[in-house]
């Protein structure tokens, strides 16, 4: 009955942290939201999903009409997992609740990569569980196509509370695309999402997340990654649409030797949006490497772009590249790159730049016959182009499409 003890302990810690403000981001009053949602029926056949919802999902890379290019699909609306399916015997996809019923050992994975008492939002997820997804790649397995996971808020004023657990067992390779979105209405809602990743020896996870919220949504994702020897974690995060308030600062603990971690984020912040986004990598295993690359554009909203790399083991290497572009409007970009080295023989560096488009560059392109608008568009496209390695072509195309759609709106 070990798992019950751990769960009791978590609840106690959560209660103690229920009012604990987060380190970053404006404080959100959770009481103004509703926390319960009606149970929605399970759908074998996804064609019942409304056209509106489908189109919102599609913008986050989640396809429901033709899932032939997906190894598995899980869709949660409000607090109900309405569909979950896997096409491979060696990949498990189900709701977190179901997984906890199925596997006693899973309790051991809860709140190990993210602290339950980190802040009031993690505490809330423990005290008001609203499901989430469980994705596990069995030892040595390899996904042919990505697994897609969708978290959708349909109910007005709901604080959606989810706890996701993703496990890549030894030697496996798992690609995931996650879309987080709401009904296409400007109504208040909140998303609290805890995601815990466990990457075992020699395993690889690529995690592509596209956010498509409404201008009234407040969002507090809480993500932790624990990596064993030789593990690889590639995260691609894209937000191109308005959100009222978003604060996230995922942390990867590279405990094994020779791990590779890469965080890419592409952020477009329209007027009225507040985004405080960072990535943290703790290099505890010798020979581990990381790269944090972020591109942030404001057209009027406010962005804080954080990055933190800590080197605690010999021969680790980390680079942080944070570039911000103030395209128009009176929003600000605050880049905060941080490096901490705790011993000799480590190699950490960073590069940060915030500014507007250089007139000299616009002129260079105009000199070649491009109009001012064409020149600006070309430079913005170049700015948003992040070299993404290690992804299946399907996902690379998905990211490109999400970025290009936004570019069109931008000009």
């Amino acid at each position: 009955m070990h798992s019950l003890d751990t769960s009791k302990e978590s609840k106690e810690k959560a209660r103690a942290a229920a009012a604990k403000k987060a380190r970053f981001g404006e404080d959100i009053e959770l009481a103004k939201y509703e926390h319960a949602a009606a149970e929605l029926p399970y759908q074998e056949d996804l064609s019942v999903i409304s056209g509106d919802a489908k189109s919102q999902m599609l913008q986050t890379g989640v396809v429901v009409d033709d899932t032939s290019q997906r190894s598995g699909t899980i869709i949660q609306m409000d607090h109900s997992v309405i569909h979950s399916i896997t096409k491979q015997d060696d990949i498990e996809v189900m709701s977190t609740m179901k997984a906890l019923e199925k596997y006693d050992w899973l309790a051991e994975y809860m709140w190990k990569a993210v602290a339950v008492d980190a802040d009031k939002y993690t505490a809330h997820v423990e005290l008001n569980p609203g499901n989430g997804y469980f994705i596990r790649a069995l030892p040595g397995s390899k996904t042919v196509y990505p697994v897609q996971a969708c978290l959708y808020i349909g109910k007005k004023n709901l604080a959606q509370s989810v706890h996701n657990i993703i496990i890549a067992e030894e030697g496996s390779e798992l690609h995931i695309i996650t879309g987080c979105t709401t009904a296409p209405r400007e109504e208040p809602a909140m998303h609290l999402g805890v995601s815990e990743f466990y990457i075992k020896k020699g395993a690889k996870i690529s995690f592509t997340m596209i956010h498509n919220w409404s201008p009234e949504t407040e969002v507090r994702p809480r993500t932790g990654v624990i990596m064993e020897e030789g593990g690889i974690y590639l995260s691609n995060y894209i937000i191109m649409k308005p959100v009222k308030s978003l604060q996230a600062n995922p942390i990867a603990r590279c405990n094994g030797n020779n791990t590779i971690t890469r965080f890419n984020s592409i952020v477009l912040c329209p007027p009225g949006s507040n985004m405080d986004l960072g990535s943290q990598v703790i290099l505890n295993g010798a020979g581990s490497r990381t790269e944090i690359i972020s591109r942030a554009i404001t057209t009027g909203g406010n962005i804080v772009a954080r990055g933190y790399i800590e080197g605690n083991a010999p021969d680790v290497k980390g680079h942080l590249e944070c570039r911000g572009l103030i395209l128009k409007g009176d929003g600000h970009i605050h880049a905060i790159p941080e490096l901490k080295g705790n011993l000799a023989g480590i190699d950490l560096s960073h590069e940060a730049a915030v500014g507007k488009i250089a007139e000299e560059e616009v002129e260079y392109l105009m000199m070649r016959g491009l109009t001012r608008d064409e020149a600006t568009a070309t430079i913005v496209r170049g700015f948003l182009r992040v070299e993404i390695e290690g992804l299946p072509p399907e996902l690379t195309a998905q990211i490109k499409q999400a970025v290009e759609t936004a570019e069109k709106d931008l000009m």
Partner: protein
Amino acid sequence: MSDTTLEIKDLSVEVEGRQILHDINLTIKTGETHVLFGPNGNGKTTLLMTIMGSPKYRITKGNIILKGTDITNLPMDERARMGIGMSMQRPPVVRGVKTRDMVTACARGRESDDELNSIFLSTNLNELVDRDINYGFSGGEIKRSELAQLLAQKPDLVLLDEPESGVDLVNIALIGHLINQLLQKKHPIRERMRSGLIITHTGHILDYVDARTGYVMLAGTIICEGDPHEILKTIVKKGYEECRKCIA
């Protein structure tokens, strides 16, 4: 159709409130190539950037006429589309914009992929096509990339700002060959549609590219006009000091 590609009349130019060019007059007939000599800091780049239409260079007097049309007040991109192309002395880096994208943009859809690839081949740029434009490029790579862009753009008036500076001896022959290709030098002059104005600080480019007329610019004024080889010989032998005597 005008047989004069470029005509500059009494042109005076200011940069950041300071007058740099004084009463420049210059005519380039269609098919001709002219060269502009002069020590550093005397206004050569200013003249080319003004012809190109860079907004920093403010025309206070005079006119620029391209193929019979007064372009004095036209913006740079329109001039480019009307047929002016320029190779910059020090072009900027544009992060995320690849060399291939630049050359493709210059072609404005007129060139097939095969033609673009043959440009990359002839300018020896294959290893640079997927790199950010000008990022970490050597002097020679910058010049070859600039020429590749012009080969795709196919301008009637080619402005080259020190195309040989920073280029090693092996590459200078290639640069010369590319300029000749750009200026249609293998055609007899009456069939050539392209004209050129080349700034050269050292004159080395004249070993590879024929030019009809040379000018010396000192303190923002053209002080002499004549056979480019003769001018170069004088400069090499006696330096620009000899030129200064002409205005004394």
